[in-house]
């Protein structure tokens, strides 16, 4: 059983560009959450998707947007990239109820030059 997969592994962009990151959840999971982890810090919640809709959102600007497809996979889009967007972007999948652990993918390392 494949766990959570993410692509690409690494990405280099320049300021002002746009980027799309992809995530496939673990089999049987219906929610996908995205987190940003800056160097030396814990992951920060960006948003969560369930039933193809954004269910919750953290304290991130509208430049960060996402999508969930009928097969539960998800994309994270970031527009007008800033140097401060350089981070590890983690995708996590789980089931929709509370009190359930989330399973994380290996992440996409984004570098903005």
């Amino acid at each position, binding site marked *: 059983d494949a766990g959570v997969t993410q692509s690409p592994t690494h990405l280099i962009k320049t300021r002002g560009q746009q980027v799309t990151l992809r995530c496939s959840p673990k089999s049987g999971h219906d929610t996908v959450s995205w987190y940003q982890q800056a160097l030396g810090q814990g992951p920060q919640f960006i948003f969560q998707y369930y039933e193809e809709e954004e269910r*919750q959102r953290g304290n991130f600007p509208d430049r960060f947007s996402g999508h969930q497809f009928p097969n539960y996979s998800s994309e994270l889009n970031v527009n007008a990239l800033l140097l401060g967007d350089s981070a590890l972007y983690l995708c996590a999948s789980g089931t929709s109820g509370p*009190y359930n652990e*989330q399973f994380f993918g290996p992440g996409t390392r984004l570098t903005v030059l």
Partner: protein
Amino acid sequence: DQQVKQNSPSLSVQEGRISILNCDYTNSMFDYFLWYKKYPAEGPTFLISISSIKDKNEDGRFTVFLNKSAKHLSLHIVPSQPGDSAVYFCAASEANAGNMLTFGGGTRLMVKP
């Protein structure tokens, strides 16, 4: 304002001894707590969780203790093994906030042979 804090950035322990990792939180609405382990170039891996109706949960060498009045939780690893060397994150969530996780900044554990 950091709602989940891990005040020790690093911890060094001898193989075979007990490792104790600590975590404090400020949001009294948190009712589910998790510990994740992270190796370099990998996503966080779920270790153990505890709900607010319990004060202790054990899984093999790992035990999590929750002190709600002090808003404090700890992870005990007994006995510690060199393979336990990693960064450990505590995370918390609220039942009415779905599976959104708020993470601490992490503690790097080094277990020396």
